[in-house]
């Protein structure tokens, strides 16, 4: 059965690595567009426009920092899921709330 497990490990590595590689390759070759990723919607008298969104920028920074932290924890101890401290979850939650609050204010309440 160990050979079946080894084959399954190889197959899983190819599939998961392949999927991540394809998505990353398409992002790098602009086939998956990241245009306007940091531009937020805002409403004005003439309709909708987009401008640089600090809420989106902080969410991007927090997301990338957390992903790097999580992967570093996994590499240092690959025998269990990395523990996510409550403080980190609180920071993430606050970051999401800031992003959503800014979006809701810009789209639902501003210029009404």
């Amino acid at each position, binding site marked *: *059965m160990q050979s*079946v*497990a080894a*084959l*399954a*490990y190889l*197959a*899983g*590595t*190819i*599939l*998961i690595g*392949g*999927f*991540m590689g*394809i*998505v990353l390759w*398409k992002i790098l070759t602009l*086939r*998956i*567009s*990241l*245009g*306007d*990723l*940091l*531009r937020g*919607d805002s*409403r004005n008298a*003439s*309709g*909708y*426009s*987009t401008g640089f969104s600090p809420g*989106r920028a902080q*969410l*991007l920074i927090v*997301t*990338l920092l957390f*992903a790097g932290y*999580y*992967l570093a924890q*996994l590499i240092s101890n*690959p*025998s*269990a*899921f*990395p*523990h*996510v401290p*409550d403080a980190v*979850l609180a920071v*993430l939650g606050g970051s*999401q709330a800031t*992003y*959503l609050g800014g*979006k*809701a204010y810009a*789209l*639902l309440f501003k210029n009404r």
Partner: protein
Amino acid sequence: MKDRVGWIALTLAVVGGLVLYFIPGDHTAKLVIAAGYAAVVLIFFYGLIVLIMMATGSIDLSQLLEDDTGGASMSRFQLLIFTFVIALSFFVLVAKTGTLPQVPADVLALLGISATTYGVSKGISAGSGSSGTSNPPATPPAPAPKPPTP
């Protein structure tokens, strides 16, 4: 051509089964191993087909991160990053330990936060009527006049 490939596959499966039957050893153990190999090979080829279709563009990923306004969505991007990270950690743990790991509550909370942000973001966009255009909403057509009563 497709029929020929099907017949070849069927022949190989029957020959493989007969070879497995006549190999000395416990039949139950051989059956378990054969089923394991068959499952791995089938799942791998299903996944490989999906990967090839993604790579060639048959499965279109160009709008993977787009929201209703046509620009990239930050909440979708974050959900993608967190899904990749947690899927990778899950796979590494299964490969290391050989068993399905217990998913801790903080990891579930992480995915929940990300998915909830995506859902609420969609709700906000839908509630604002954002459609990526600055045109005013179309007025409904005037109702047809009633026919005169006799």
